[in-house]
């Protein structure tokens, strides 16, 4: 290849190293030199040419963010449909120039955009007067339907005679069951206090029953709870001796042992038959040891001895 352009000649003069080479390389060199000439008048001689370290950083595409929709909102819009329920504050959906926070020096309090304080506090934007009015009207309609349904006699039996007044109702049905429901901000619906059910019988008795096992069946719904109370589940029949809450002497190993012992005594010694009272005393003593522990019986024992 003979044709060497003027620019190439200049580049050869500067970078002597690339002078002897094949024709293809000459062409490439000529192209780069032309490109460089367009940008720079004089090129710098690099005896040790630097590596072309141009990191190709991917430019992050900026996503076009539309302007906040609070700017486009018409003045007479239906606000309850914009903010239908309780929600954390969002500046783009509330067309109000809000500020919250303690001002720094003489500046204005922080504005609504990027304001964490506004996001923390609970707001009542879903409880504006029109929204409340709308909900009340919806409730009225529902109640109207319910009344119409309840007035239809085909679904109801007749109200029993003689139970018209609360006094009469109390006299005929003296039992009252009081349950408590508790609400917490936690994923569990169980509350130990909700297990306490008070059964009131007239004005005479008040006693509290702790209903453990049934509360696991149902905790949230009281009527459901009462219905479940009357059921006996199949697994409840599998209750063994170890599952009993209280010790019952009748049918226990202790009763059997006592019987065996008495039989043995009768046979071997020929003594009198055991008295009925002694058996009852023994039974009470064993039962109280199992149910109340040892200490109550120790308190009782001296007194019994004294009486005897």
């Amino acid at each position, binding site marked *: 290849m003979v044709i060497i352009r003027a620019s190439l000649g200049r580049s050869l003069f500067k970078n002597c190293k690339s002078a002897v080479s094949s024709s293809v390389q000459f062409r490439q060199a000529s192209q780069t030199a032309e490109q460089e000439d367009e940008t720079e008048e004089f090129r710098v001689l690099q005896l040790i040419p630097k590596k072309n370290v141009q990191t190709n950083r991917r430019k*992050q*595409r900026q*996503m076009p*963010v539309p302007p906040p929709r609070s700017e486009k909102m018409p003045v007479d819009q239906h606000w309850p449909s914009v903010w239908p329920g*309780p*929600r*954390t*504050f*969002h*500046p*783009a959906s509330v067309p109000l120039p809000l500020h919250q*926070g*303690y001002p*720094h*020096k003489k500046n204005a309090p*922080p504005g609504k*955009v*990027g*304001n*964490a*304080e506004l*996001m*923390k*506090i*609970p707001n009542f934007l879903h409880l504006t007067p029109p929204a409340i009015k709308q909900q009340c009207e919806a409730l009225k309609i529902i109640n109207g339907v319910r009344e119409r349904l309840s007035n239809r006699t085909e679904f109801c039996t007749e109200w029993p005679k003689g139970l018209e007044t609360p006094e009469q109702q109390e006299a005929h049905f003296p039992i009252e069951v009081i349950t408590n429901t*508790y*609400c*917490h*901000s*936690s*994923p*569990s*619906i169980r*509350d130990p*206090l909700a297990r306490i059910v008070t059964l009131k019988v007239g004005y005479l008795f008040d006693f509290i029953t702790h209903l453990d096992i049934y509360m696991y069946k149902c905790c949230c719904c009281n009527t459901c709870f009462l219905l479940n109370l009357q059921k006996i589940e199949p697994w409840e029949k599998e209750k063994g001796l170890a599952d009993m809450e209280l010790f019952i002497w009748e049918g226990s190993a202790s009763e059997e042992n006592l019987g065996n012992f008495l039989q043995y005594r009768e046979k071997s010694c020929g003594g009198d038959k055991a008295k009925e009272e002694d058996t009852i005393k023994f039974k009470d003593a064993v039962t109280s040891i199992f149910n109340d522990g040892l200490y109550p019986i120790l308190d009782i024992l001296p007194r019994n001895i004294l009486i005897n």
Partner: protein
Amino acid sequence: MDIFSALHKNVIPLLFLKNAHLRNSRTIHLSAVCSKSQSGRYKITPKGDRPLTYEMANPPHWIAHRKSWNSFNTTNLLGGLRSAETAVEDLFIRKFMVGTWHNLIANEVIIKRQHNIIRIAVLVRQALNPRKMYFLLGYTEELLSSWLQCPVTLELQTIEDKNCTIYKYI
């Protein structure tokens, strides 16, 4: 009454007079260095160019005065249940959020609990494209609700830049 005036008044027993090292060890935890409260406070820089958010600019003693809490629940009220569990869960939610929305969250994670619903409010930078953001949103809600066994809602507010949240420079 400091220890030296106490010495003059013969209040301190003889033991402390004889053993000076014991006396010193007794007083070190009351010294000015130890009683300084540091948590939630930021040091000023010589150039005054450290950006602070509103949350950072107000130290903990301003909670309920200038700023509000980051966790809202009823567990610490009288008769409240699961206070310890809730605290640990909140910690977990915070860690999970910061890790999942990595380098995107511009404020402290706000956790509000109402009945069994957990609402998580955060400020997020607009650095992801909406599709990825929606994916992360669903991912976070789904995983958290399956771990915590209750519905979890994410309530995001996106901001252009972290500079939006700067309250002051110190």
